[in-house]
């Protein structure tokens, strides 16, 4: 059971802290021009953060208690291939579809 005091303290501080993280550079730097070396690195933010975020979710999913799950590996791979070859929609449907198909074909794995 989560106490009301703990919940509200956490939620308000997390909301505030998360906003400050999001506001940080956009809020403080505003329209100021950035140096070239920084612009060069900022181009790679999305393509580095998202894989770093997704890798542990795929390899050690919380839903299986951190055990590597073949169904989720296959689903992630299917989503990646569909996303590279076809489209975003294909990646989303292909990924979840592969997961369900695997569960249907190999219910024990």
């Amino acid at each position, binding site marked *: 059971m989560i106490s009301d005091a703990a919940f509200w303290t956490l939620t308000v501080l997390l909301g505030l802290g998360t906003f400050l993280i999001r506001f940080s550079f956009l*809020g403080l730097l505003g329209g100021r021009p950035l140096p070239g070396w920084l612009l060069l*690195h900022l181009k790679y933010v999305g393509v580095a953060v998202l894989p770093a975020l997704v890798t542990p979710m795929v390899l050690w999913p919380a839903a299986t208690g951190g055990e590597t799950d073949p169904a989720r590996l296959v689903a992630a791979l299917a989503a990646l291939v569909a996303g590279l070859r076809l489209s975003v929609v294909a990646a989303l449907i292909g990924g979840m579809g592969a997961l369900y198909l695997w569960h249907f074909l190999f219910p024990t794995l």
Partner: protein
Amino acid sequence: MGRAAFWQGYRDCAPFLVVVVPFAMLFGAVARDAGLDLLQVMAMSVLVIAGASQFTALTLLQDQAPVFVALMAALAVNLRMALYSAALVPHVGHAGLGARALMSYLMVDQAFAVAVKTYEERPQMTPGEKVAYYFGVMMLICPVWYGCTLLGALVGRAIPPELSLDFAAPICFIALTAPLLRSLPHVVAALAAVLAAIGFHGFPAGLGLISAALVGIVAGAQAELWLGRRARGRA
């Protein structure tokens, strides 16, 4: 001009509803299961509006972790958004303070990835169109995030675990990454981030993520510089 860009953003983000809907519902259901009332569930989704960190905070509170520990872990998960914040500066930094504050509140992975991909593909977009596009993206995602959290909280246990809705989040992030892999340095950045994330697996939750992301960013930038030098060397 702004209106067309707004609706373009709205349409470009529509495919992500396929995963935002189940993921928001899952959060609502899990939060109710953890003993939160409807007001608490909604307060969290509205105040924080960052699914991964909400799950982190909730899980730790349920495990009776001290509030401070849960807070730090959840904030660490969100630290990646400081990088998003910086990367958005060249595109929408000119906007007024109020607009920048609202854009910051709405800064989620989908909005960032979809917007930056479009900005880079269409350099002819005006600064005003870029801001309108960003708000268009979030005008679809944000109400759906609130609404489906509520729906999940109401439906609760009716969501069977066999649906593996937890995996909607990583699938979504993969779908966001694939279109970003459009040059060799981008692929290098992604691979370096994956390898670093595996190497940093033992790190506390958010710190491994941010370290791995920084490795990927530097790898991508270095790859671009190296390719540039090589091209000049040949010319």
